């Protein structure tokens, strides 16, 4: 928030001159562009450092592979650590498969029913049964065990770290940028170093999942503890509590709802990534989806995708019923006791009668009818899908890509990016962007990055064009909002990767499914945050405008939108980051560009390439994130400093 304008007169005066000179800056920009374009004709940065980074890294990777069994850093740390994680995985998986299949649905029912919501409990229980019905019970258990271990590790690290950060500002200052980076970087990027150290298969998948799902656990713990009213902490101090007593008797219990929300988010993020971790050979539902898509067995892919959604739904509901349980009505001891008895009884009966695996006779084969339906859809809905496809490819992707890669000289791109960064944020970001982009070009990732950027831009344009008007509408109209809420809730629960499945079934493989999936994925927060911004405009400002006789339109464009603008730009920021993550993931299914290179790097162990791709993605992510963030900050009206 240090970038918010300080409302001192000096700052205001500077702002004045800055505004009045703005015309000149545009002229300078134009002149620079023309000059650079005239001077340099090359459209790509010469890849002078083609092997400067990838070479040493590949050497290191080779060294790591050769010394994995000998070097103390592996034998002393990574190998025992991997072994421990692997042991945990095997144990949990064995336990889940040892349990009679109906125990898990029973537990789900009992946990949610405790809150008295029998409808939600029933739906969640049926969702828990679903994977069994489509023959994916064991696969689902594999996914669940990987998640369970990853979430346990993430919480074991995240919650104490969050507590520490809440109590020591210096720790918070230290870990905040790290968490920011972890959340800005698209997940597949850190698959690459993880693979290098932990090898391929389930352990690196677990580690990657831990890294990805750690930030909410830390952040929300810190937030929760900081949110405990000062008076309650002081009251506790005044009774002579030790810091530890205050922590365990007051701060942690009072922060519990927020911490539980953090745990819920950690679980949801873990599920999202566990599916992607297929790339690392994690097996489970993700692999099922990927194989099905690659083999064009759409029915199977869809069934597995739905299983992921079902698991996500169940976990979300269970998590929420734990997080938002009414504190004033704690579960009666009798309920907990009866539930435990029921569960133990179910285990004993199940094991004794041999009802352990999901009964095969119950499994329904949905694959063939789904295949048929999808084939029908692909053939008969082409009157919609084809024009959409053509519009995106011919109308957006090709012209933008050609413009960026064939027309514009590379220094012009650097210059313009630097200029925008400078105007919106400052010299620091401008210099960083120019050098970072130059680096991307020098290591030979220029063309691929521009191609990814093209896809990102296309998806962002479409997402924003949908999300902002819909968000504004929902922000103003309660009925629209009420109608959208369940849809958005559902979309938000679905792990990113799953979005690709239905889209890829209807469209041919290529860039378009990735873009559409990115749009579907990104419009949810886009709409949500925009609506929030519109709704947060103080009623008084609106009424003030109305008393001057403003038309609804004037009120909208003169008051509502300007006041909501910072929030709307924050929505755009969120859209961009989600689109970027999704475009990378879409590389899995033919999106090409950097995403595809990531997949190649991970699956073939081309570590050097992986780092180059990773650098390019991170550079793009950081620039886009900081730029939109700075833009949102600039739109914020000056606030008094004290």
């Amino acid at each position, binding site marked *: 928030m240090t970038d918010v304008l300080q409302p001192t007169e000096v700052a205001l005066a500077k702002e004045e001159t800055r505004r009045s000179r703005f015309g000149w800056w545009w002229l300078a920009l134009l002149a620079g562009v023309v000059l650079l374009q005239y001077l340099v004709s090359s459209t790509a940065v010469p890849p002078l450092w083609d092997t400067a980074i990838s070479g040493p890294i590949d050497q290191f990777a080779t060294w790591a592979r050769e010394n994995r069994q000998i070097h103390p850093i592996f034998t002393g740390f990574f190998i025992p650590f991997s072994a421990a994680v692997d042991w945990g995985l095997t144990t949990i998986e064995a336990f889940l498969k040892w349990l009679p299949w109906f125990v898990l649905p029973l537990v789900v029912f009992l946990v949610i029913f405790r809150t008295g919501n029998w409808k939600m409990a029933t739906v969640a229980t049926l969702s828990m049964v679903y994977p069994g019905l489509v023959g994916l019970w064991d696969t689902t258990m594999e996914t669940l065990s990987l998640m369970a271990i990853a979430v346990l590790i993430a919480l074991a690290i995240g919650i104490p770290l969050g507590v520490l950060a809440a109590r020591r500002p210096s720790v918070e200052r230290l870990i905040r940028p790290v968490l920011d980076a972890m959340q800005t970087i698209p997940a597949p990027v850190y698959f690459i170093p993880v693979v290098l150290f932990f090898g391929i298969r389930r352990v690196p998948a677990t580690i990657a999942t831990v890294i990805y799902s750690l930030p909410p656990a830390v952040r929300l713990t810190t937030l929760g503890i900081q949110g405990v*009213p000062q*008076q*309650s902490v*002081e*009251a*506790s*101090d*005044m*009774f*002579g*509590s*030790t810091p530890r*007593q205050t922590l365990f*008797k*007051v701060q942690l*219990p*009072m922060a*519990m709802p927020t911490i539980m929300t953090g745990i819920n988010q950690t679980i949801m993020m873990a599920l999202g990534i566990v599916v992607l971790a297929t790339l690392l050979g994690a097996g489970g539902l993700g692999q099922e989806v990927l194989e099905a898509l690659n083999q064009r067995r759409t029915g199977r892919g869809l069934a597995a995708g739905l299983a992921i959604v079902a698991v996500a739904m169940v976990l979300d509901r269970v998590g929420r019923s734990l997080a938002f349980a009414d*504190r*004033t009505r704690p579960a009666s001891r009798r309920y907990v006791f009866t539930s435990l008895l029921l569960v133990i009884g179910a285990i004993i009966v199940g094991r004794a009668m041999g009802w352990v695996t999901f009964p095969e006779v119950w499994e329904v084969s949905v694959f063939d009818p789904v295949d048929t339906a999808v084939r029908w859809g692909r053939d008969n809905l082409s009157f919609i899908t084809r024009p959409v496809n053509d519009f995106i490819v011919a109308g957006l992707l090709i012209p933008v890509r050609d413009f960026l890669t064939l027309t514009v000289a590379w220094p012009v791109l650097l210059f313009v990016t630097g200029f925008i960064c400078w105007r919106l944020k400052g010299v620091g970001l401008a210099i960083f962007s120019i050098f970072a982009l130059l680096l991307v070009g020098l290591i030979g990732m220029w063309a691929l990055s521009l191609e990814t950027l093209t896809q990102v831009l296309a998806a962002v344009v479409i997402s924003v064009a949908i999300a902002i008007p819909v968000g504004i509408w929902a922000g103003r109209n309660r009925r629209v909002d009420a109608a959208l809420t369940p849809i958005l809730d559902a979309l938000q629960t679905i792990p990113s990767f799953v979005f690709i499945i239905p889209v890829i079934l209807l469209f041919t493989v290529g860039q378009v499914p990735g873009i559409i999936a990115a749009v579907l994925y990104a419009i949810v927060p886009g709409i949500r945050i925009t609506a929030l911004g519109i709704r947060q405009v103080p009623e008084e400002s609106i009424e003030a405008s109305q008393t001057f006789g403003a038309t609804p339109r004037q009120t909208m464009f003169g008051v509502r939108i300007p006041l909501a603008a910072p929030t709307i730009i924050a929505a755009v920021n969120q859209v961009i980051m989600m689109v970027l993550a999704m475009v990378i993931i879409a590389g899995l299914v033919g999106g090409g560009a950097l995403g595809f290179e990531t997949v190649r790097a991970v699956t073939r162990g081309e570590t050097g390439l992986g780092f180059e791709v990773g650098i390019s993605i991170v550079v793009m992510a950081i620039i886009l994130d900081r730029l939109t963030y700075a833009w949102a900050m600039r739109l914020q009206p000056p606030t008094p400093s004290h």
Partner: protein
Amino acid sequence: MTGDVCLSVEHIWKVFGTRPDRAIEMVGRGATREEVHQATGCTIGVRDVSFDVGRGETFVVMGLSGSGKSTLIRCVSRLNEVTSGRVVLDGEDLTAMSDDQLRQVRRHKMSMVFQHFGLFPHRRVIDNAAYGLEIQGVDKDERYERANKVLEVVGLRGWEQSYPQQLSGGMQQRVGLARALTVDPEILFFDEPFSALDPLIRRDMQDELIRLQETLQRTIVFITHDFAEAIKLGDRIAIMKDGAFDQVGTATQLITDPATDYVQEFTKEIPKAKVLTTAAVLKPGRGGPNGRIVRLDDTLEGLLPALLEDESEIGVEDSDGKTVGVVDRQAVAKALEPDR
């Protein structure tokens, strides 16, 4: 201050900012708060405040927002560290104590009631009330027994198993009061405890506190921004302004003899007839011609029937029945004059 001193505050200063020494020195040379802030960036919270509180006395600090009264009580209870000066409780210097020593004093000798209650929403009323004992390590049966007794005293019987947020504001503050009383403290700090309550509830709570204090006889330091509340509760009252005390005295002293215009401003709004007692208008004398007698602690309002019937001087006697002087219409009329 006569009798046994419980709490003694000696020349405490609280300066917020990075250069407190400079700020204190500037004030010493007569600089105002604003000048100090301009020059050093420091804010003077409490400026050289000293006072003693006797055992069983209710000492009220009254001030408007920004007067430094909350900072003062936070310094005295050591929620904030003082910049200089000493706070002595029962002969022990609180300001010099280590964290461990302070913790022991807090566990056994002092309690605080907060403006916004500071209750623990995740604990039932009984567990809120028993919190201090829990911290001391008192076992469950005993602490529930003691908490139950106190809850009954403050009128919360039957609410033990509820959660604080299920109670009304006034009842929540009763929980706050119970929580403070359960540890059986020597001294109670009240930081504007009733200002978040509705006027009628506030009056109930004030009456409740007076009633409790009759039997408990605790030492109380009470912070308020409400002059009427100060008059009603305080044995002695300090009027605080710009971090320092303008005047310290009994209600009668403040009303009959305000030290500054600022103090007088507050007394204007006060229904003097209800506050002042015969003592404030006492003249020397050996009793009236008609043999009528009033009591020394009767309010002026209470004198009115006697004054209506008797134009001449009326005798006044103290609680032991000894005649201590006389009153007449002129003296009372003068005391109630609006401009005083």
